């Protein structure tokens, strides 16, 4: 009973169910093999491929905790990819590590500026988050196209490709990036007081301000972090396809990120948030994508299948359904009213 009540019980259960279904249909799904001291397998692919969404969803989690939303993450991904690839492309020396590093640094600085722009609109000017980030969501891809001059910039750069496809020690480098981000954000939020202050601002901004919390600073910084995360995600994405595709990079990722946050049990109303929940939410989405491939669902129908599973997970997590599992105290029989969870039969 105590386990079932845990916030993350249903997300974890959903994730495990997906893994079991996959393993039953194709046993090699669960197999992890070691080749040249590096890990390979479907599970490793999921960890590696989930990196962009993981980064974006982590940023989205703390944005949502402040009662905000960041719709611009996909566009920021496109911009950061475009900046990095254009620099590498124009350098004439794409295989030089220094070129790649400086390209990545510039791209991330641009992402920081874009995040700060969002933060400024929201925290300083007080514009509603959905409107403020919508501006950049729409304009960002235009900026990316401007940078790539309307073309899909492609490069052949060993060091740049390493980011998404390389291995460090035994694990994919991309996964290690997202793991670092998880640990860093987790540590910042929970080992310092930032998490509690963020939640306080999300639940009641005015009470927090009067309690002396720097609400503006916190709100500003979550958009900066979200922008930075999207920037890194954009680098990984373009490294993976070796190209800056301003139209396709990060398309709809804001929606998947929001979905991951919600699947992880963080409310869109702000306040209490869970980094661990978001991580599980991202893994559910990524595993689901693999499942669709694995089960051979025709690609035309895969969005429907995806949606069905997501709806199922969300329903299972909804407060009313969760209450169903709980027997009220002193209950002596069923009363059959799902919407009145606190109800018990009258004891004799």
């Amino acid at each position, binding site marked *: 009973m105590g386990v079932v009540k845990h916030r993350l019980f249903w997300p974890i259960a959903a994730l495990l169910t997906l893994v079991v279904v996959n393993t039953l249909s194709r046993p090699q799904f669960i197999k992890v093999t070691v080749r040249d001291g590096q890990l390979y397998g479907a599970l490793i692919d999921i960890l590696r491929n989930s990196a962009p969404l993981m980064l974006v969803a982590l940023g989205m989690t703390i944005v949502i905790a402040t009662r905000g939303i960041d719709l611009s993450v996909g566009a920021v991904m496109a911009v950061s990819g475009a900046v990095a690839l254009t620099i590498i492309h124009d350098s004439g020396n794409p295989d030089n590590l220094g070129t790649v590093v400086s390209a990545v640094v510039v791209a991330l600085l641009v992402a920081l500026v874009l995040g700060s722009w969002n933060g400024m609109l929201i925290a300083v000017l007080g514009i509603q988050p959905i409107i403020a980030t919508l501006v950049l969501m729409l304009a960002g891809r235009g900026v990316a196209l401007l940078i790539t001059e309307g073309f899909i910039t492609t490069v052949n750069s060993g060091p740049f490709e390493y980011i998404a496809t390389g291995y460090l020690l035994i694990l994919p480098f991309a996964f290690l990036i997202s793991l670092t981000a998880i640990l860093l954000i987790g540590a910042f939020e929970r*080992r*310092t*007081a*930032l998490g*509690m*202050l963020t*939640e*306080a601002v999300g*639940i*009641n901004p*005015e*009470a*927090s*301000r*009067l*309690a*002396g*919390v*720097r609400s503006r600073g*916190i709100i500003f910084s979550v958009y900066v972090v979200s922008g930075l995360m999207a920037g890194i995600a954009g680098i990984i994405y373009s490294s993976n396809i070796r190209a800056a595709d301003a139209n396709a990079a990060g398309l709809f990722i804001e929606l998947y990120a929001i979905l991951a946050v919600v699947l992880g049990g963080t409310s869109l109303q702000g*306040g*209490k948030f869970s980094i661990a929940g978001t991580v599980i939410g991202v893994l559910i989405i990524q595993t689901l994508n693999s499942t669709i491939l694995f089960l051979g669902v025709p690609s035309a129908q895969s969005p429907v299948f995806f949606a069905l599973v997501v709806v199922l997970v969300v329903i299972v997590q909804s407060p009313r359904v969760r209450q169903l599992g709980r027997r*009220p*105290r*002193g209950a002596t029989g069923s*009363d059959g*009213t799902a919407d*009145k969870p*606190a*109800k*018990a*039969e*009258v*004891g004799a």
Partner: protein
Amino acid sequence: MSNHGASPPGSSIVEMRGITISFPGVLALDNVDFSLRSGEIHALMGENGAGKSTLIKALTGVYAIDSGEIAVAGRPVVFHTTADAQVAGISTVYQEVNLCPNLSVGENVMLGHEPHRGGRIDWKGVHEQAAEHLRSLGVQIDTRTMLSSHSLAIQQLVAISRAMVLESRVLILDEPTSSLDRGEVEQLFAVIRELRTAGVAILFVSHFLEQVYEISDRVTVLRNGQLVGEYLIEDLPRHDLVTKMIGRVLDDLEAISEASNREVDRSGVPVLKATEVGRRGVLEPADLEVFQGEVVGLAGLLGSGRTELARLLYGADRADTGSISINGEPVRIGTPRHAIEQRIVFSSEDRRGEGIVSDLTVAENIVLGIQARRGWRHKIRKAERDAVVAEYMEALDVRPANPDSVVGTLSGGNQQKVLLARWLATAPELLILDEPTRGIDVGAKADIQRKVAELSAAGLSVIFISSELEEVLRLAQRVVVMRDRREIGQLDSNRVGLNDLIEYIANTSDGSAA
């Protein structure tokens, strides 16, 4: 619904026996008996958290009961939903009216019971019948007007006439008068008395003792989830009622009053000296000095500028004129953070909107002030945090005594104590309390006043704002009177009485006050 006719007057219509309801960690009702007779107005009294609303919710099918039984008109009943209770003839009018504000008055009165003609709703009949029901309550309004266009008082009367449409035998009025003015209360009471004559059993919950004495026939007192007793109102003097509610004698308040009746040394440098502090359109420039260990009351009507002055002093709103010195040092206070750095803290009158962070725990709410002051990098360590939380929860007697309960689930009085704890934990020099006792029960009120008296005697400076002038006079050594966004004078509260203060607020106006 023929069984819903009026029962003979005086016969018992609702019998609740041995009602027990527990929530995780709290026994909300402990073996409580309650009976309600037709043709009586029965007041249910108790502090917040005494179990009044739990008892009402048990009777209206909102909460299930763990044990005990409920009988209506002699027949045992089990309510699963509020609809079950309504079918049994029990209707409730809450302080926040639960009608549809965007429908017309007539639609609200007749909702679900509209007369039909030829398979369609007979709208003319709806409004005729609604108007008739309202007229019987002495309300003459156009039933085609939108409900939201009417005052809360009228909306409550509409809710009552809706109960009449449902042919209710039991009408529960939960704090119906809390936002009504005197005239509206009179109108409501006239209606209630008429319903009593018609044999309806009325359960009345109110914080206003005077109204309880004015209208009730009988009173049941609850305390800490237990039944204290049932009394005829004429057998229970007011002092005894309050004593039964709070479980300790009113002498407490007397003691507070005496302790606060002391001379303050005003020869030194004031802790706070505000000169010409004001803001265009909000407050005319005002002066204020507060000395160490002094409680300064701010008195005046709502909108007189008392809250506005406090907010400017704290930086919650920015002053555009004037200067402030703390312990003789001139300081700039433009934001709450500046004030907190100067060890000035402020508890807003809007407890829910500007005070508590409702989804966080009691412990988190208490340490929020300290944590904000230290900054996010220096998280308060668990041992220190637990010690601070335990110390203040005990000092202020916060209940339930569980630091991990979510603060939004606490009663108003306990939320206020949590806020006070938050601020006291930051070791302030000047505590500004705006309406710290509004909407909370007698016991918590006394607790908070006692704490203020204790702390100020030990050297804390306090600015105390309250609509309850008795409180201001009891606690303060000096009262600053505000009117029309202006400071109009100061009184030595050790030397003036309540009537002098009321006189002063009302009369120096030259008749020009609104």
